[in-house]
């Protein structure tokens, strides 16, 4: 097997699924059991996690929270069409290399001047290391930085579905072996394998090769109980009664036929807005005024607006 569970991992704190749940919760991220299992397995099997799900359910937040919990640096790489190796992995410090050749030209006479013959000069030249393509001139980009981080890191490859297929293929070596090959320098392997989180919004289908190397985690909308816990953690100012009502309201809103149902991030925003407005309880009036926080499309606001009274009444129980 190219990888092994015996590799030193950055933390022994990932001892059990419960430990993951508590650890993430202490950083303000309330994971579902499934998410905790995924993080735990990612640690135990040294595998990357591919996270899919609708926008705003906390895919990126998960990576941030893992980094905060394990006190590891978070290295984030945002993918986009046209992203290539030079921007993701490494680049040579072009300017410095230029300067180096200038210096080399000036100094070469001094160094080789007293050589008796051409052979001797060549011999002496070979004595110097090949500095031109050395680590000194290497500009590490996110992927290489994540491998070189001495204490390990959390590498977040955000929206990997937006990158090209070629780039996806290029990721494979890093994901399966935690190493990269730089032609001039050879193989660079991670000292401590990073925790790798990839996120995808399913813009396009990812290749099977990539999926096979990852644990596939789908984060959907949370159930009411979990969402209440999330709100309690994120917006502690909202009291329990309001929390219950707004979560029930959002949950029933998701049942409607909407273009873009509200996500967890919208629920959190809405809770903050309601707290700012000193709303003690939901009322149809309040909801109507603040609905644009939850719904981002005019059509959706119209759809929901028609049933607002009923939805509010139901949420108030």
């Amino acid at each position: 097997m190219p990888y092994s569970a015996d590799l030193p991992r950055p933390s022994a704190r990932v001892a059990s699924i419960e430990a993951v749940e508590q650890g993430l919760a202490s950083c303000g991220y309330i994971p579902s059991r499934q998410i905790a299992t995924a993080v735990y397995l990612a640690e135990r099997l040294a595998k990357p996690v591919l996270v899919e799900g609708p926008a705003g359910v906390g895919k990126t937040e998960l990576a941030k929270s893992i980094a905060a919990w394990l006190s590891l640096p978070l290295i984030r790489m945002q993918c986009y069409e046209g992203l290539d190796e030079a921007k993701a992995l490494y680049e040579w410090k072009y300017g410095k290399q230029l300067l180096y050749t200038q210096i080399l030209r000036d100094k070469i006479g001094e160094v080789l001047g007293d050589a008796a013959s051409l052979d001797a000069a060549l011999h002496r030249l070979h004595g110097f290391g090949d500095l031109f393509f050395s680590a000194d001139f290497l500009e590490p980009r996110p992927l290489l930085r994540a491998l070189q981080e001495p204490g390990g890191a959390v590498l977040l490859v955000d929206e990997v579905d937006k990158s090209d297929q070629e780039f996806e293929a290029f990721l494979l070596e890093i994901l399966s072996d935690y190493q990269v090959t730089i032609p001039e320098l050879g193989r660079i392997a991670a000292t401590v394998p990073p925790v790798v989180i990839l996120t995808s919004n399913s813009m396009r289908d990812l290749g099977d090769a990539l999926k096979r190397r990852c644990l596939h985690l789908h984060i959907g909308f949370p159930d009411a109980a979990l969402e209440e816990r999330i709100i309690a953690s994120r917006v502690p100012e909202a009291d329990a009664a309001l929390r219950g009502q707004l979560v029930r309201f959002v949950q029933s809103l998701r049942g409607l036929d909407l273009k873009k149902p509200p996500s967890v991030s919208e629920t959190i925003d809405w809770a903050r807005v309601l707290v700012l407005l000193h709303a003690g309880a939901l009322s149809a009036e309040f909801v109507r005024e603040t609905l644009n926080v939850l719904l981002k499309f005019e059509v959706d606001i119209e759809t929901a607006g028609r049933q607002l009274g009923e939805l509010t009444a139901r949420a108030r129980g």
Partner: protein
Amino acid sequence: MNATEPLRRFFAAARGAGVRISPAESIEAMRAVDAVGFADRAVLRDTLGLVLAKTVEEKQALAECFDLYFRRETPDAPPADEPADPSGEGLAGLLLGGDPAAVAQAMEAAGEAAGLPNIRFFTQRNLYTRRILDVMGLRAVEAAIGEREDAEAQLLTEAVAGLRATVRDFVERSLVLFAREETEAFREELLRSTRLSNLDRRDYDRMRVLVRAIARKLAARYARPRRRRLRGQLDLRRTIRRNMGWSGIPFVTVWKEKRIEKPRVVVLCDVSGSVAAVSQFLLMFLYALNEVLADIRSFAFAGSLIEVSEILEHQPIEPAIAEIMTRIGFGSSNYGNSLADFEEGWIGLIDRRTTVLILGDARGNRTDPRVEILERISTRAKRVVWLNPEYRNAWGTGDSDMFRYAPHCQMLRPCSTLRDLERVVTDLLEMTR
């Protein structure tokens, strides 16, 4: 480790449910299960979902399969290896003992001994039920009942009837689990080679999956932006970079590259009465194409032609197809008229990077085929591809104008089964190379 055996069989069952599991993945899954243990059912299910499934649908299928499978299996207490005592003494004791767990365990063991995981067909249910009961020692118990006439015999008779039902149920569940792999594969194979016009409505769901897979193959190829080197234009920056090692003397040259834009696709789909049997399917293909290709315009025609891109984009597949059919479908087709409609309204869509895809039987009910319009389209477009749902030897018979249109098509294929479609798509990809 004997705990891996139920897992291995679960993989077989999961494959049957449509989840692809490679050997490497099953090893990975075993490692994962090692890490989490068997104790917590929900965690075990999540774990297998994380490692094995690659899409949300697969997760769903896997979870269902898991529930079905592990309701049967007790992975933390693997069934005893030795089959139950065939003398019947043990069975009678078991039945009267009133311990359902012990009975279930004996049944598991007997199932194993009778080779139950090999069950493949519905018709084998009775055979396997009988075999399991034999292994459990039913004959001896029945003989014992025959000899005695007391209350215990009465009790045993009832218990045996109960056992029979339980075993039968057990066999049926196994059939669902283990036979699905074969039957699914068989069904799919059948679907691929059946004439599209002969397909049943109930096969549509599966068809849709297959059609989507084909369309996606096409899209994956199209969506990739390709680069071509521009001859004679030096990329100065990259050339200098490349030759730094030789103090800027350009030993190696780098040429500028040009990105080739993604091609456009225009699809004209016949939905008239003559192709009614297959138009559902053609529209399905069109819908799938719409899902996977970014730059596509879709048209449907019978007597005249309308654009349907909007409908396909904004509605789910069933209502979309229904709406198209009510708006334009079922009439008698008039190819000349439809082509004229297209030329009048949308000829501007077609430029040298457009692929025009026509799905239809070219039967215009003896109306003027207006071949010259197709010729004009063909000269403007990158290529015209015509897929005809009829067999090749039906072309040109009756009112078919296929051979008149043929000279203006760069590619012309019969497309009457899914397999044909697959082949056509592959050829199309070859052509774009």
